């Protein structure tokens, strides 16, 4: 009995060594460049797992009354996965603010969740830009009672956004510059829909999210909410890939180029009414 346990331990160790050697070989292949870029690396359980905060319509959300993730991101990923010949699955993350850590901890193969490309995020993970820049949408009650049409108009107001989004960073920056004398009272929520509800209830004066998301919320509000003029800096969305999986990154980039080339990309954007926001450098 004891002997066989030692034996299996030895086998396990051998397997680990084999894996390490294999991984090292993989890196070597990489340096050669070229090859078939569309050939994705081996995936665990043969499926590309995508971490996402699936509460950000129309970019990603659960179809009403179902557990099916739908949205712009889901359609783009479906097209990429088809190019690569792999299955994929969107998985709800615990906390959007923790999505970079989830990816680094290999909880998912990639993360795709309307993630704006920022230098802070790029220091941690690789981001493949695929959409936008979309701009920030300022959601306000119908009639825009606070007459918001510039960043300065937000100073002194109570403004909500989802924790971990670039919009929180923007407001923090405004409070150090434009709004230094009359800071924004920044209210943060773990998810976007809760902060939109806070605006509907009138507890906050405005709510910030990415432009397509704000526009969608306005559309769903039966005229209670509108998007005030924007003009905020913004960044394109990126698909997050671990820095230690360059093969996967290359494969996804090649697939993206392919779906842009064959028109699939444009038809997806058109389906979601976002044809003006095709990614451009």
């Amino acid at each position, binding site marked *: 009995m004891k002997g066989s346990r030692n034996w299996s331990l030895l086998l396990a160790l051998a397997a680990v060594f084999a894996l390490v050697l294999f991984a090292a070989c993989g890196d070597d292949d990489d340096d050669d460049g070229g090859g078939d870029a569309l050939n994705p690396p081996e995936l665990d359980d043969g499926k590309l797992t995508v971490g996402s905060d699936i509460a950000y319509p129309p970019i990603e959300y659960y179809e009403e009354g179902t557990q099916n993730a739908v949205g712009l991101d889901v359609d783009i990923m479906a097209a990429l996965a088809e190019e690569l010949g792999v299955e994929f699955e969107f998985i709800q993350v615990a906390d959007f603010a923790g999505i970079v850590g989830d990816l680094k901890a290999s909880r998912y193969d990639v993360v795709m969740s309307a993630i704006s490309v920022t230098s802070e995020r790029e220091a941690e993970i690789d981001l493949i830009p695929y959409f936008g820049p979309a701009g920030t949408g300022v959601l306000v009650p119908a009639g825009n009672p606070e007459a918001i049409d510039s960043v300065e108009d937000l100073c002194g107001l109570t403004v909500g956004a989802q924790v971990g989004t670039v919009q929180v960073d923007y407001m923090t920056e405004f409070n150090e510059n434009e709004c230094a004398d009359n800071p924004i009272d920044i*209210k943060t929520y773990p998810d976007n829909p809760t902060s939109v509800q806070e605006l509907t209830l009138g507890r906050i004066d405005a709510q910030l999210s990415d432009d397509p998301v704000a526009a969608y919320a306005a559309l769903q509000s039966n005229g209670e909410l509108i998007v005030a003029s924007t003009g905020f800096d913004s960044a394109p969305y990126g698909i997050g890939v671990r820095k230690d999986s360059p093969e996967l990154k290359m494969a996804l980039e090649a697939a993206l180029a392919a779906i842009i080339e064959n028109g699939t990309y444009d038809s997806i954007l058109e389906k979601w009414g976002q044809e003006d926001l095709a990614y451009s450098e």
Partner: protein
Amino acid sequence: MLEPLLLALDFRTDVVRRFLFDDVIVEGAWVTIQVAVLAQIIGISLGLGFALMLVSRSRPLNVIAGFYVWFFRGTPVLLQLLILYIGLPQMVDDQTFTNELTAFRAAIIAFGINEGAYMTEIVRAGILSVESGQMDAAKSLGMRQMQAMRRIVLPQASRVVVPPTGNEFIAMLKNSSIAFTIGLVELTGAARLIYSVNFRYLELLVVAALWYLAFTTVFSILQGEVERRLAFGDRERPTTFISRTIELLSGKRGTEMVK
């Protein structure tokens, strides 16, 4: 000794030290304490009231208190918080009401009412632990029902009620973290706010954990003290893990006989 190891493990103790007394964290900790203390006070008051209703001989009062415990112990506190904060304003549809019901107040009210259901059961158990002969004796001395309850039964019940109440308060301190769902930046929310920007997840979570441990440690010492004072008449005064540790360190005996 430990630091090189921690560095190899990608855990930055300097980040922990930098944020331990960060303004956002300290403010969050203060919010946590306020919510927990005020909600626990509401919970104890409601628990006392509803427990008296439960043990009273009035049928309608029994039913009301029974319904209260049934509902608030039977649904998740997060759900109750959302019903109060997001749901109720939709129904009431009055802007003053909505504005006055801030996340801070909603958390205190929701946690307080929820806690009251548990405290009702705890106080009821305390009352039942006092022999019925005590009530009869008090009445034979001419005390009225409520008088006997207040002077004879409740003081004796308190000895049974205090330890689980301390447990409840410690749970309250920690469970108040779910108030971040409605945007209240308490201790855990503060840590999440910071790690959403600097990506040092574990370090910030450790910072929050250290604060919670500090709170619960101080509170455990206080609770131990209260229990010792309430143990009048007992042959051996109860000790807590912490009071024993302190006594051990100061060279005193582990248990102490009442003079």
